């Protein structure tokens, strides 16, 4: 996993969605009981990732499982990022 990307995504989640940093691990289930995100949060994640990496994860076909954790989001960004 690209920890540089993961750290940026984590920071974005903490800032945009007010998730307590100490409760957020790379493998935390974002939409499960751990963090409890919902559909509004997923919109914010799409916007946040586009702002950070220029990757339109929605347009690039991200599926529900890609939003599962910071790890899966990182993998998706890494695969679709244009350098």
């Amino acid at each position, binding site marked *: 996993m690209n920890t540089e990307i993961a750290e940026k995504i984590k920071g974005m989640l903490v800032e945009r969605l007010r*998730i307590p940093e100490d409760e957020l691990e790379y493998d935390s289930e974002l939409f499960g009981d751990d963090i409890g995100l919902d559909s509004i949060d997923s919109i914010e994640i799409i916007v946040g990732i586009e702002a950070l990496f220029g990757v339109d994860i929605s347009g690039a076909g991200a599926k529900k499982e890609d939003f599962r954790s910071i790890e899966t989001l990182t993998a998706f960004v890494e695969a679709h990022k244009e350098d």
Partner: protein
Amino acid sequence: MLMNEKRCVITGLGLVCAIGDDANECFESALEGKSGIADVKSFDTSACYSHKGAEVLKSNEELVDGRYDRTTALGIKAAGEAIKDAGLDMESDVSSEVGVILGSCIAGAACVEKYYNSKVKGEKGDIEDLKAMPASAISGNVADYYNAGGITANIVNACAAGTLSLALAVDMIRGGKGDIFLAGGCDSFSSLAYAGFHALRALAPSDCSPFNHSDGITLGEGAGVLVVESYEHAVKRGAKIYCDVLSTGVSSDAYHITAPRPDGQGQMSVISRAVKNSGIKFSDIDYVNAHGTGTAKNDESEFLSLNTVFAENNDLSVSSTKSMTGHCLGAAGAVEAVLTVKALKEGKIPPTTGYSDEDLEVLKEKAGHINFVANKPVERDIKYAMSNSFAFGGNNASIVFAKDPNTLNLTCPKQELYVTGIGMVTGEYNDETKNYKANLETEVFKSYGVKSAFLRKLDRLSQIQLLSGLKALEDSGLEVTPENEGAIGICIGTTDGPMTEIANFQKGIIKDGIDKGSAFAFPNTVYNAAGGYLSIATGIKGYNVTIANGFQSGLQSICAASGAIMFGYEDIMLASGTDECTDIDDEIYADLGLTGEGGMKLGEGSVTCVIEKDSSAAARGAKRYAKIAGFSSARDTSGNRLDNSRLSEESLTKAIVNALKKGGIDASDVKCIYGFGNGVSAIDDFEMSVYKKIFGDSIEVKLIKKELGEARAASSSMQFAMLAKDIYEGKVANGLAVSFGTSALYSAVLLTKA
């Protein structure tokens, strides 16, 4: 006749929106299926995926004389038409009786934009914009414009605000708090709402098409104002009567801050409440003006709700007029109420436009057994018509209009009301910031079982509100269960509401662009988010209203909560006063010149009181702090209209004297007053001089703001709560809590021993 069965009638209509300049023009346009939706002109939407809006193509100056925020200007325009239509001479004595209750979602959003445009550039903002930003300013300004002297209130329950305002006006009349009200709602087109719904991906890419393509809403703007009047008052002055307002329903989803319950339970509950309170059957309703926004979530749950509750009604017509007017947010319920009254009066139902032949085929499936009126108007006799509004925060409101009077089903026997629980959150003084801040550590919430996954969504105002609500429930020993969840309601008073969230959201889109609003932050910019979160966290599914009307809002919430119990809507109400103190609030009050040397010290907090009827308190053996013996409000119309917080000896005296009269207590028997003095000498001196005239020199006056700061609506609630505690502890036998606020409204509540 019981007071609460008083006939209420509609005697005047005023309407302005994208399809017309007055009620007649709007109704004719609606019948013709003329849409007001076009490309947005108010601001540049080129970066957005949608460019549509239903704007009123008139400048503020064309709408109204004088300088007002656009939301207020629209309200003044529609109120003027309603006054004229009702034949009211506002230069005569009747003007002193006319109250003003208006709903708004976004309040002074146009002024918020202007003010923060200046601030972001590092310039000094215009103080007139600043004064016009909060919802608290709207009704008072409209009342002052027309010299109306009755009670004012601003209802701020987002998209249900227009309908809720009408509901409150009806209750005020039936509760003996006035005989005639200008009631409705107003909201302007705004970059704030546009960016917010854009962020939520809730805007339709092209013209909205409710119950059809259901791919989103199209925002609109406008105002609807109805003259709601007691039948006796209308007859006495020879007014023409459009129809009766039978009754209303108000409920909470307790589900999600923006989305309706997919199972439609909250919507079905509110429709059922309105039908039951009106004393009619589901099969009696001929026409429903649906909320029908055009989002998939709304349209699916609303069709499900209508098909389920009206299963036995085989001749029900339904339409949504939002396909033409756009979604006018806090004005929507009022705009639709005017169109519904016109439909009932003329026997013509305006259609929902935008259906192709293919769409009409699909509609047959979706609409079930409902006669959905698409594309073309339908002529039919309408005896009973309903208008529904569902809002962010899970707030639902429904109202029933009727051609003829009816025996209502508001048969709640008269009962004493008690304070049976108190929850307080107050600020502690900070020497550095020179203000008072509350402790909102996560651990405090955890001790009440609030998960951090939920808490993170709440803005500061909502957090303070949630905490005081939870403390009040705990103090009263009240557990919310599936059996009582519908018999408990919430009423919140606030001065500034979520101004911090509003300002930060606006600053964000000024900086980053209208297409870059935060979907996470936007839901918290509505004033009723705090009440919505409280219902979600506690499971309370009854009445839910938020009133923004200056510092006295904490007392006004007690009055409205008492009304909701008196009419049998609920057994128990949580009545709160809540205001926050953030850097934004600090800046606003400093810019207004109200803090600093010789000024007030800003505080924050939330106080929730559990108000309960005698039989409910007795059944669960609840402790009783005190009895609510009387309350009254009075508004000034004689002072300087440019100062909406003007001091008025006459109005303060009237509020106190009337509250004592209601409680059957002589001024000489009053033991104590929890006053509103806040360290500003002009206010403190004025207050003491009035009390001395009424009660003599020896009256004990307690001023809590010295220790807790000016926490605005939280302070007035706190005055009430502290008095209740003093009575409970045997320190005093009775007392008054007194406050005043924007729109020069003075309120007094009398508490006695339980």
